[in-house]
């Protein structure tokens, strides 16, 4: 049995089929489309709200959100493929540690070349003076430092007070903190302390003892006597059985379940931890080391422009300009990242410690130099993990790291 299809029906059916493809494009109209690749999940994440707020202004630029992964490495892999295919992202959140790779290999654009020196200066002038130098990788401004974090100590205040500790105590050195967590562990039976095991938190110990991971000339110096002293302080609680070493997801799960008294990790995790924890949570600044000036590091990511199309670069500039505004930053601070701009925004509850730490001055996160910088980073993490597990003495482990990293940086 055959049934004739009228022209009218055919046209309607064809229109219905084409609508999902055509309509989104039509809704963009003549706007310049700028895609923002990032790692943030959730339909109501601040990144989505910032994008909506910008798009609602109908500035002639439409920003499209693209979550291509949950780690900097994952989105970098995908960005590489799309850049190679000629369809690279206009903007991408780029981890500080990947800064050199982004500039040398991925082709993150020098703001001064695409926006001009004056407009670049105007954009970066909206950031606090102590943050501005961190926006440059190798002296080249390639990113907007909108997502900055720093290591802080999360305290389970319920356990802290149950252990008889001063509820308002703010130990400013590890030498003050360790006896307190020992008391917490002994009185409550819960694990006293946990650190994340990676290159980032250990960097703060090295710096606070007066050392560096990689010096200003790009030379690995992570086995200097000062660095050894810093890492000795880092592993001390493990030796004293105050810290049971675990992976970062395990640490977060255990802390959120109320099984750990204090945890040192990024201030950017605050909103997630606060949501999951059913106890009183207090954040304090990361303690330094007695007898040494505090020298805390920053972390997080910057927004880099990868597009080589002038129109998109200009669109990206409009969006970056909006991101530095008070309106955008008020939304953005819900993530737990720091207010690094000159906008006078009240500090969100819980962010006080991290914000105060930033006011005291932060160094940049280690940027791993050279064509094999990312491999050098992995190698260094492996040596730090060996040291933390007691598989190798601190001095030997750091020397092993320096020797391996030196070869990779020189390659």
């Amino acid at each position, binding site marked *: 049995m055959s049934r004739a299809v009228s022209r009218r029906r055919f046209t309607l059916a064809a229109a219905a089929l084409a609508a999902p493809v055509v309509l989104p494009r039509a809704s963009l109209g003549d706007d310049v489309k700028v895609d923002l690749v990032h790692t943030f999940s959730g339909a109501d994440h601040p990144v989505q709200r910032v994008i909506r707020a910008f798009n609602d202004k109908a500035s002639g630029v439409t920003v499209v959100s693209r979550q291509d992964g949950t780690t900097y*490495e994952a989105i970098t892999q995908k960005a590489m493929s799309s850049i*190679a295919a000629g369809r690279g992202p206009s903007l991408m959140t780029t981890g500080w540690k990947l800064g050199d790779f982004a500039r040398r290999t991925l082709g993150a654009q020098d703001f001064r070349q695409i926006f001009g020196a004056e407009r670049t200066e105007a954009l970066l002038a909206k950031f606090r003076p102590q943050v501005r130098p961190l926006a440059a990788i190798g002296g080249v401004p390639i990113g907007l430092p909108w997502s900055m974090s720093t290591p802080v100590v999360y305290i389970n205040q319920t356990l802290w007070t149950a252990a008889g500790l001063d509820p308002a105590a703010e130990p400013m050195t590890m030498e003050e903190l360790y006896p307190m967590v020992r008391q917490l562990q002994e009185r409550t039976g819960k694990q006293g302390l946990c650190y994340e095991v990676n290159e980032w938190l250990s960097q703060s110990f090295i710096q606070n003892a007066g050392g560096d991971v990689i010096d200003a000339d790009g030379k690995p110096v992570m086995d200097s006597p000062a660095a050894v002293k810093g890492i000795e302080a880092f592993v001390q609680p493990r030796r004293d059985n105050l810290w049971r070493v675990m992976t970062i997801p395990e640490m977060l799960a*255990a802390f959120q379940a109320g099984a750990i008294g204090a945890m040192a990790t990024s201030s950017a995790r605050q909103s997630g931890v606060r949501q999951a924890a059913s106890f009183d949570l207090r954040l304090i600044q990361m303690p330094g080391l007695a007898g040494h000036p505090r020298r805390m590091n920053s972390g997080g990511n910057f927004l880099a422009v990868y597009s080589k199309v002038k129109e998109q670069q200009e669109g990206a500039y409009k969006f970056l300009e909006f991101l530095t505004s008070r309106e955008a930053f008020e939304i953005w601070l819900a993530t737990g990242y720091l207010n690094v701009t000159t906008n006078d925004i009240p500090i969100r509850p819980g962010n006080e410690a991290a914000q105060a730490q930033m006011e005291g001055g932060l160094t940049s996160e280690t940027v791993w130099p050279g064509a094999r910088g990312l491999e050098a980073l992995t190698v260094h993490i492996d040596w730090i993990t060996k040291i933390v597990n007691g598989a190798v003495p601190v001095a030997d482990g750091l020397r092993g790291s320096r020797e391996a990293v030196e070869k990779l940086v020189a390659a």
Partner: protein
Amino acid sequence: MTLAWRRLGQSPWLFAGPAVAAAIAFVWLPMVSTLALSFFDWSLLRHEATWRGLDHYRGTLANPDFHLALANTGLYLAALLPLQVGVPLVLAFALARVRAKTAGRLYRTALFAPSVLSFPVAAVVWLWLFNPTVGFLNTLTGSLGVPPQRWLSDPDLAIWSVIAVTFWKSFGLNLLIFLAALANVPADVTEAARIDGAGPFRQAVDIELPLISPALFFAVVTTIIIVLDEIVGAVDVLTEGGPYRTSSNLLYFLYERGFRHFQFGEAAAVAMLIAVLVAGVTWAQFRFGERHVHYD
């Protein structure tokens, strides 16, 4: 229909063509490209290639992380092959003898269920079970007086934790293969054996096992592939190859070279070394394993 079309229609190339084209495009060309790439330093973005000769092969073969990944791959294989084949085989014999239909279906569903879960979903559960502070496993072992273990962050334990999860996740497939093979064993053969006085154990070992040997051989071959290949998912989700590469394997080593460090030339050399290794193992399987298989 024209004569030319009829002639073309009779040509075997018309039928084999799509498959051959797909094999050339998706298997052979990538393999040849990978081989070529292994002799160069290549930038995906700049499309620049620098001739390195055999440097990547020398570098890889001298790399202690490669040695560790190779040794771990051997350990994964040595532990998982007997587990993934032996346990499902025994279970299949047991399940085949369950007379109650509902109970049989229930057991099969329960035992096969982990195989249909994706690794990321299963990993969420396992990460909780393995948690050294609040995990169920340490609660359980703690009640037996065993001190808490760091299942995923202890360098001596991490690889065994990955083995346990991989076994739990993958053994259901072999169970299904063995159950299907046992269902095809002719009833008159086992009946004759029973009349001749063979007990269940003799029936299983002397009658059914030889008859399902093609399935057993297939299971061994596919299990080796799973251990070499699919375990990467478990490694990535549970330990990321750590602590300090102690739970990595060859394919994860390759993944890190290529997609974490973006050293594509080196990754290509590792891929070629793995290809040679897999070809050798497969040849050995057919050379020494197939002679014990009865296809009649």
